[in-house]
């Protein structure tokens, strides 16, 4: 689907809102909700990092390889809030159109 990729950006930003996450974790939480080419999350994370929305750091883990964590910056949080607002407006609009189009009137 064409628009999924734009939504991916919103998803990774929102997922890191409360705590830092590592790449695999982000991929896993998104791909359990909808089907994506999992590899595309990494280019996206790179871009958001380059744009200053994330900072990254490596941390050793008990099991497995060291993980690269993504932390949302202040700028990233502002951007996320903008995207969430945009999404809500979009979502409401589409739902209204679907409602009207399919005749589920609330009246």
């Amino acid at each position, binding site marked *: 689907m064409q628009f999924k990729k734009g939504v991916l950006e919103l998803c990774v930003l929102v997922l890191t809102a409360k705590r830092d996450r590592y790449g695999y974790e982000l991929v896993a939480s998104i791909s359990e909700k909808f089907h994506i080419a999992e590899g595309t999350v990494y280019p996206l994370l*790179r871009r958001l990092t380059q744009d200053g929305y994330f900072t990254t750091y490596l941390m050793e883990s008990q099991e497995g390889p060291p993980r690269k964590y993504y932390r949302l910056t202040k700028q990233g949080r502002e951007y996320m809030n903008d995207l969430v607002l945009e999404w809500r407006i979009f979502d409401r609009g589409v739902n209204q159109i679907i409602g009207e189009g399919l005749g589920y009137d609330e009246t």
Partner: protein
Amino acid sequence: MTRREFMDEMGSLLSELPDKERLDILADYTEHFLMGIQEGKNEHEIAEALGSPKLLARELLAGYRINQAQSNASVGNMTRAIVATVSLGFFNLIFVLGPFLALIGVLISCYCVAVTLLAAPLGMVVQYGIPTVSQERLFLLFGSLASVGLGGMLIIGLLRLTRWMYRQFLRYLQFNVQMIRGK
């Protein structure tokens, strides 16, 4: 595709990137493979879910090129960014190259107008010589001042506009890389 195959293909597709950038990207995917294996998935499954290295590499290259053009403004960098974005697919050819050529066309014609205004007085003198009647001389003087002034202001405005458009167009490229082919 095994992990080894995936990484090798990715590595060679990204060979035009500087080492640091390429190794960093490969490290991300290696981490992904290792974590998947740790969860009990097999390499083929993981590679399959990641998607085609070719498409991923194109996207990564485009991202890198756009970033380069942003931090280092030049015609060459902009061209590479556009080529990389266009390589993402036919859709981008129309939606990236089309608007870009149109914008360039408009800009070039504006610059031509500015240069014409700047050169007009000189042209007048070359063509007709310095007029002998003092009234005509005054007319030439003030006409020249107006023409050069307008041309100069237009050039300054255009230079700013060019810089602004450069930045906006890069954002547009980024938007394209992000929106298109969203499988």
